């Protein structure tokens, strides 16, 4: 177990270094932030700002400084906000985590029961409707879904606020938007792994013993069907964070995703680096949890 954790931690460090390097390289290839901060100012003024921001040093020097700072958890000062970049990201993290967790929960709440039911009643109307909806759900871009939900629920029916993040009502539409992004895939996985499992002999044996259908499905079948579902859930979390970037922009939610989008537009290197770093950490952490869950769900999988 210790060896397992250590190996995962090493992998985590590798991921973190990789993410930082790629972010640094892409950002510095993308142009001069000073020109964006003061686009119409004379060169003399821009030179002053470049010095202030430490952008006048040669690239290797900047890179060394960046690595050194990252190792100590210091991502530098935001060019735009003039406050520590890491604090900006941390301040917005709870909003993004709440949004993604609620969406994941909602997606699960839809995918598990509907997926199981479609598998058990394969080919029946519920299954056909569910399978059709999956295709529809998967082919709608998050951006479009969000706008459509706003037009229906806020503009047409006046049920919910258009945007913002100041009441529970304002959380409903973004959560729904983001879960339409995840729910279909989860549903498909739940359905197909359930289908695989309920054909197996041990399920038939359980039924033959006279165990109630309810217990057979939930106790016996579900636990074995859960493995692929858990894997995909972990992977989906990364995608969900990506979707949150768009959802936060559409619904004017003050989360990390929107912070990063703004920072990219302004070439605010420290904020982009800190934000991407944090999101990468979360994805790595979630997948670490998934690995641990494996052992619990199926002791046959010896943790290597």
């Amino acid at each position, binding site marked *: 177990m210790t060896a397992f954790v250590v190996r995962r931690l090493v992998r985590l460090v590798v991921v973190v270094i990789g993410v930082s390097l790629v972010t640094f390289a892409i950002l510095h290839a993308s*142009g001069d932030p000073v020109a964006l901060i003061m*686009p119409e*100012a004379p060169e*003399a003024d821009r030179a002053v700002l470049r010095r202030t921001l430490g952008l006048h040093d040669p690239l290797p020097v900047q890179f060394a400084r960046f690595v050194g700072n990252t190792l100590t958890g210091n991502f530098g000062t935001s060019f735009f906000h*003039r406050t520590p970049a890491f604090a900006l990201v941390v301040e917005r993290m709870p909003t993004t985590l709440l949004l993604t967790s609620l969406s994941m929960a909602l997606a699960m709440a839809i995918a598990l029961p509907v997926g199981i039911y479609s598998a058990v009643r394969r080919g029946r109307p519920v299954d056909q409707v569910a399978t059709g909806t999956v295709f529809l759900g998967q082919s709608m871009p998050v951006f479009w879904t969000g706008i459509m939900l706003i037009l229906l629920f806020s503009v047409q029916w006046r049920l*919910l606020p258009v945007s913002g993040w100041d009441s529970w009502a304002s959380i409903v539409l973004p959560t729904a938007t983001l879960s339409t992004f995840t729910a279909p895939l989860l549903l498909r996985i739940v359905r197909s792994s359930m289908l695989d499992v309920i054909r197996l002999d041990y399920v038939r044996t359980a039924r033959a013993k006279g165990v109630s259908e*309810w217990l057979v499905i939930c106790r016996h079948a579900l636990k074995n069907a859960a493995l692929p579902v858990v894997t995909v859930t972990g992977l989906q979390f990364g995608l969900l964070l990506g979707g949150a970037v768009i959802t936060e922009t559409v619904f*004017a939610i003050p989360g990390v995703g929107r912070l990063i*989008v703004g920072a990219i537009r302004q070439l605010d290197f420290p904020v982009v680096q800190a934000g991407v770093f944090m999101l990468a950490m979360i994805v790595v952490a979630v997948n670490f949890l998934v690995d641990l869950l494996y052992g619990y769900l199926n002791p046959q999988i010896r943790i290597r």
Partner: protein
Amino acid sequence: MKRWLLPVLALGLLLSLTSAGSAQPKDTLTVALVSHAPTLDPHMHFERVGILVNVNMFDSLLHRNTKLEYEPSLATSWKALNDTTWEFKLRKGVKFHNGDPLTAEDVKFSFDRVLEPGKEKKKSPQYGNIRAVKEVRIVDADTIQVITDKPFPLLLERLVFFAIVPKKHIEKVGDEAFGTTAAVGTGPWKLVEWKRDQAIRLEAFDGHWRGKPPFKNLVFRAVPEVATQIAEMKTGGVDIIRNVSADLIPELKASPMTYVSSTPILRVHYVELDMRQPPFDKKLVRQAANYAIDKQALIQKLMGGLGQQVATVVQPRAFGFDAEVQPFPYDPKKAKELLAQAGFPSGVDITVHSASADFRPQFEAIAQMLTEVGLRTNARMWDPGPAWNKFFQTEGKATHAAYGTWGNYSVFDADAVLHPLFHTEPGGWIGKHYTRVEGLDKLIDEGRSTIDQARRKRTYAQIQKIIRDEAPAIYLFTQYDTLAISKKVEYAARGDEWLWLYDAKPKK
């Protein structure tokens, strides 16, 4: 088996419990901005979205009215004592939001805060605006003098947005708090709270010297997505949205809740020509390029008629504009003739660059029009970041031409566009790379080295004649700004793109 119903029921319950409640109280005016500036401190940013908020909280020495004329604000009168000394009389009885009276000390402090005499690294990004100011002298309690290091004709322009801030208060709370939670000015509204990237809430200031504004509460919401802004507008969640693009105007005009207000703004579009090398080193080719473009078609077909053709880059409402200089007409036949005369009877291949994603259709139409007369154009779009490097760093590499727009930093003066675009001194901007017009530098320098406005006007008239003839750029049009406004509110777009909401009134 019914357990899965629970989440669905819960969601239904949540939906039924919530009321939309987005209708605003009558005395509240809500504006949607795409983002918030990094600070509320009027000296420590250079963001349009920040200036719009600041002007409603802070006063400057001068104000610009809707006709874009100077009006007294914190200064009741001003005059130039000589080429480099300006004297301002301060308004008496003005109070800051915290109750402190405005003093000459506050005015001097505001200047020194941006100028930071003796320091090499300046905190304020607005330093460049007033760098010509050498010293601010307090003459008596109601009089100050601003002394510039050389004649600085743009001083009054710069002072229209130069917020006067409270010395005692800032020294007490510090810069950081002043920019976030404790912003205090003399303007019509005072700060209630700022939730970053959500809403800046302001409340009318009882002690404001003009009297109380018609709206008690003023809210600036940050809504990055245009489609969301429009949905908010339609449901009464916001009352004003900015920068409405031409394709959205019909929809907003048709809505029973909204109307639109457009006005020409100080942003000019042009294609800068690289005069250092063929083919645009030849005057005839540059003129041909100007004749080749059908500006009216661009304005009518691509911009919904919201644009005004210009003869050069100097715009009609900028000081120094000469109405006698006429725009190049659209004349493709003449363009071809000129091209042949210049030695390109069968045309020539060129590349034109652009980083203005918002004006891509215009850029592509221009490329097509140039190609039609024989300037066969390869149109290249760039991301802004890499484009800055290529177009304007070390040596300009936007060969043979680049589409651009220039906003003059909202300074209504010919110098604010001529110097950056066409002057070739090393400290210059675009012109130093691409423009090579004999004698032009000297004239531009002449225009900025006196405060004798009649003389400046003559100089700029002469410059406009020269650049119309030499054509260092393809001259296009000035841009319009369009606001969408709730029918409950009476307001009109301003030529300087400010939202001076003291002028906004509830409609009966």
